[in-house]
C-alpha cells in the first residue's frame, strides 16, 4: 500500500494505491472517489481478532469519541486499484509510518490506514484533554501506514524539554512524551478571559503534531452568526 497526499496543506486529499486484494481501512464518509473494482465492505471492527459483538463495541466507543461509528474497508479486487479520501474540515494530511509503535491521535484526526493498526478509545488518558467537548484522544498501535488530518496546516515539532500547546491545536503525538493538562496561564483570570481554556504541557523527547487552526473556535465563531436551530 502507498498513500500519496495531494493539495497540501489547504485541502489535502489522500490517494491510496492498493496492490491486488489489499485492504485499506478508513473513517466512514471519507471516500471521495475510487476505481470501479475497489469494493467497499463496512465493518464495525477495527481489530481483526474480534467477532461481530466485539467489533460493534469498538465501533460504539469510537462513536462516543466523535469519530464516525463505523470504519469502512476498501479492497482492490483482482487488480491493483486506487481510492481517495478526504476529511471533513479543510486542512492538511500527514502519512506516518508505524513500526510496532504507538501514536496518540485526536479523535477527529483519524482518516485511514493499514488494517493492522488498532484504535483504542479506552486507555487511561483518553478523556483528559478536551474538557468534555466530545473529543477524545485515540491510541493507535501497530505497524503500517496511518494517515491523519488536521484543521489548518500541520506543523511537526520535535519536543526536547518542555512545550505547551492549546489542546484544541493538538493533532497527534508519539507515545514517548509525557503530558499534563492544565488551565491556560495558570490562573483563573487567564483561564476565563484568556480565550484558551485547557492547555497541555508536554515533556520529554518525541514528535508532536499541531494544527494551525482550532476547529471548536472556528465552529463557535461561525455558529454564532448562522441562523438558530431547533
Amino acid at each position: 500500500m502507498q498513500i500519496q497526499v495531494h493539495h497540501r496543506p489547504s485541502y489535502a486529499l489522500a490517494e491510496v494505491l492498493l496492490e491486488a486484494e489489499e485492504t485499506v481501512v478508513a473513517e466512514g464518509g471519507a471516500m471521495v472517489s475510487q476505481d470501479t473494482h475497489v469494493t467497499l465492505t463496512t465493518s464495525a471492527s477495527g481489530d481483526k481478532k474480534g467477532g461481530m459483538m466485539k467489533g460493534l463495541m469498538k465501533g460504539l466507543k469510537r462513536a462516543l469519541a466523535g469519530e464516525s461509528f463505523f470504519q469502512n474497508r476498501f479492497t482492490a479486487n483482482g487488480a491493483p486499484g486506487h481510492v481517495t479520501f478526504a476529511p471533513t474540515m479543510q486542512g492538511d494530511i500527514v502519512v506516518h509510518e508505524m513500526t510496532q509503535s504507538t501514536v496518540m491521535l485526536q479523535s477527529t484526526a483519524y482518516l485511514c490506514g493499514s488494517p493492522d493498526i488498532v484504535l483504542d478509545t479506552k486507555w487511561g488518558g483518553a478523556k483528559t484533554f478536551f474538557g468534555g467537548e466530545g473529543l477524545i484522544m485515540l491510541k493507535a498501535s501497530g505497524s503500517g501506514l496511518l494517515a491523519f488530518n488536521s484543521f489548518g496546516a500541520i506543523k511537526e515539532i520535535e519536543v526536547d524539554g518542555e512545550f505547551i500547546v492549546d489542546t484544541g491545536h493538538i493533532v497527534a503525538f508519539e507515545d514517548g512524551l509525557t503530558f499534563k493538562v492544565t488551565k491556560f496561564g495558570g490562573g483563573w483570570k487567564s483561564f476565563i478571559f484568556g480565550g484558551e481554556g485547557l492547555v497541555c504541557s508536554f515533556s520529554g523527547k518525541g514528535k508532536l503534531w499541531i494544527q494551525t487552526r482550532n476547529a471548536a473556535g472556528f465552529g463557535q465563531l461561525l455558529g454564532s452568526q448562522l441562523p438558530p436551530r431547533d
Partner: protein
Amino acid sequence: MHHEIKNKPDFASLHLFLEQGEQVVTESGAMMGMSTSLKMETNMKGGLLGAAKRALGGESLFLNTYTAEAEKQRLDVAPSTPGDIVHLPMTGAGVMVQSGSYLCCTPGVTVDSKWGGAKSFFGGEGLFMLKCTGEGDMWISSYGAIHPIDVQGTYVVDTSHIVAFDETLTFKVRSVGGMKSLFFSSEGLVCEFSGHGRLWIQTRNAPALAGFLHPFRRVKSKSN
C-alpha cells in the same frame, strides 16, 4: 482580455483585465474589487424560468454583466466558498458544471439548467448540473482543491465532490455498496462515470461542513 488566477488552491481569486468594450458575466455577489470605469448590469440570464431554475439549484437568481467603458479596466472576482478556481477554455464541446461551482464566463458561453440529466445527481441537496456550451472562456470554483481526473474506462465519485465533467462521459448515479453499506457506511450517493473525458472533483464537500457547523448554532428559544 487576459486573466490571472492567484492564491490557488487555498482561497483562489480571479483577476480579469478588460479592454474597452469587452464584457464578462459573473455570478452575483462575486465582485471583490473593480476599476471605476466598469459598468455593472444585473440580469436574469436565460429569462425568468431559467433564473428560477438556477435559484432552485442553489445558484443565485441573477448574473452580473460587466462592460469596460474605458481602457485597461480591472475586475477582481472571488467565489463564496473557500477553495480553488480553474479556467476552462470553451471550444464548442459541452461541459457539465455543478450549479454552485459556476463563477464567471465570457458572453459567448451559454449556461443551460434545463437539460435532461440536470437533477439526478444530488438527491435532496438542491444542487444540479448546469450544461455549459459555446465558445469563449469559463471559470469554475470549488469547495476544496480542484483535482482533475482523466477518465479512461470507468470511475466512481461521491456526488458531493463533483465539480464538472466533459459531456463525452456517460454517468449513472447509484447508492454505494448496497443496503447495509448505505446505512452504516456514511457514504450516500456515488456517480459512476464511463467513457473518455475529463472530470474535475473537489477535495472537500459542503454537507460535511454543514454537519460540522450545525451543533455550534444557537438553539432557538422556546418562548414566542
